[in-house]
């Protein structure tokens, strides 16, 4: 708590107290806004570099820094100065505001992601449901954006995105349920604390696999990138976006990539826990980047799957696997097999 300044002489101490307060640092610096922007910029460069290495190319190189790591800044400057094309008879307000809303709803869930024992903005009692509730807003907003651009390819892409994300949301939620059963809490901090002895990846391995596949589909990553299938839909639901709008959309997409990777880290990979020679947030970010790498790699390796295969996989395989693992977890918990890890 910082008291509001009463006299002009109090203003400077007030500002210092404000800037050094834990709330301010967690919201603005880490794990808040600035850290988020830096990691998202890094991820755009990192993805291009990883894909380039898979395909025996070099990737971004000339923008400066080691390996062209300043490429995202160059991209940002370029995109800001490009003309924003708004299609004929597009719905202008929605076309402009939906990308910003997407960034907002991708950034807000980071408030409950614990990057360390004390590096969390808000330890919500219902943190996991908070993250899921906000990410469930994505498909409808994407569809509205696709509709607002008043063009056939984005619209088809938007519809595909909607049914894909809705179909894979359910296995995602249910596979997270077994983690909730193991930890006995919906708070992400409690979930990580429960993994001090063993990562939930081990007792809930099936859930881990299902969750990982489901977030690949949620993020529209290959082999599930049907909503932006280049040969048939140009660029999918963001075909008509250009300039700054395109940049904001990509910001939201990479933020969601980071969010989902950190969610995997929290739920299955023990969050911030690791040998003590590195600080907790470093462990967390390392694990998250490794997860992100595994999400990125298939883009250079696999082909896109068909629509019917996608739907069949989601509704008849993943859903059943996730449900089976919930029963398995209940069984393991009740028979006391997991009691040696204090679960």
């Amino acid at each position, binding site marked *: *708590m*910082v008291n509001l300044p009463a006299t002009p002489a109090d203003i400077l101490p007030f500002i210092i107290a*404000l800037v050094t*307060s834990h*709330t*301010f640092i967690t919201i603005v610096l880490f794990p808040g806004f600035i850290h988020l922007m830096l990691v998202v910029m890094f991820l755009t460069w990192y993805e291009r570099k990883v894909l380039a290495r898979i395909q025996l190319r070099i990737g971004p190189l000339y923008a400066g820094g080691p390996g062209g790591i300043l490429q995202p800044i160059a991209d940002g400057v370029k995109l800001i100065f490009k003309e924003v094309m708004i299609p004929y*008879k597009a719905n202008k307000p929605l076309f402009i505001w939906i990308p910003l809303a997407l960034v907002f709803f991708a950034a807000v869930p980071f408030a409950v992601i614990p990057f360390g024992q004390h590096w969390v903005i808000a330890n*919500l*009692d*219902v943190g996991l*449901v*908070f993250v*899921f*509730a*906000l990410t*469930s*807003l994505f*498909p*409808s907003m994407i*569809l*509205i954006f696709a*509709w607002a651009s*008043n*063009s*056939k390819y984005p*619209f088809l892409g*938007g*519809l595909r995105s*909607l*049914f894909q994300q*809705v179909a894979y*949301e359910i296995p995602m939620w249910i596979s997270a349920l077994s983690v909730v059963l193991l930890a*006995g*809490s*919906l708070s992400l901090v409690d979930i990580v604390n429960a993994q001090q002895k063993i990562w939930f990846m081990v007792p809930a391995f099936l859930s881990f696999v299902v969750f990982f596949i489901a977030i690949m589909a949620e993020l529209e990553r290959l082999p599930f990138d049907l909503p932006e299938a280049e040969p048939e839909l140009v660029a999918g639901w963001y075909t008509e976006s250009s300039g700054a709008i395109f940049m904001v959309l990509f910001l939201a997409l990479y933020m969601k990539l980071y969010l989902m990777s950190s969610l995997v880290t929290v739920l299955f990979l023990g969050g911030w826990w690791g040998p003590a020679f590195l600080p907790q947030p470093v462990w967390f970010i390392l694990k998250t980047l490794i997860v992100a790498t595994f999400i990125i790699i298939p883009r250079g390796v696999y082909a896109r799957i068909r629509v019917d295969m996608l739907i069949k996989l989601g509704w008849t395989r993943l859903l059943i696997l996730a449900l089976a693992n919930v029963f398995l977890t209940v069984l393991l918990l009740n028979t006391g097999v997991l009691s040696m890890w204090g679960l």
Partner: protein
Amino acid sequence: MDIAIPPDIAFILLATVTLLAAIMALQAKELIYGAISLAISFIGIAGFFVFLDAPYLAMLQIAVYVGAVVVLILFTIMLVRREVVRETEEHEEGGEGSIGLWIAGLLAVSIAGVAALAGPNLPTTAPPANLPVSELGPVLAIDYPVPLVILALLLSAALLGALVLAKLEKGQ
């Protein structure tokens, strides 16, 4: 560092936004705007749950109503209605919206009537505020199973609504 907004002002703002969005949802000429206003009004209701110290309910409100019901409605509108991809400027002149308002008014009156009739029988002690989620489950499943099932019927109403939207177009 807490910058506290007086709760009354926040409540009035939230109520205004929710009600306006609800009216918009019924009156909007284009169904898409209706669906968006419906989503806003649902988020407003989630805000009320936060005010009532029920964050879990608020989150589920967003996840189920905005994340699922609005998606269902949007999906139906997009798949079935022809005018969604606007090649022409034509709009249908809708009088259906005001019927919706009448129904909403009737519903509100009947709920108020039921509450007035059942008033003496309602429990007078307020449930404990900020009930942890782990205690919410037993309360719902053991103490109030019937209301839970009735509430689940509400969701099927949403499903029916989406179906009606789909049927209207085919019938024309």
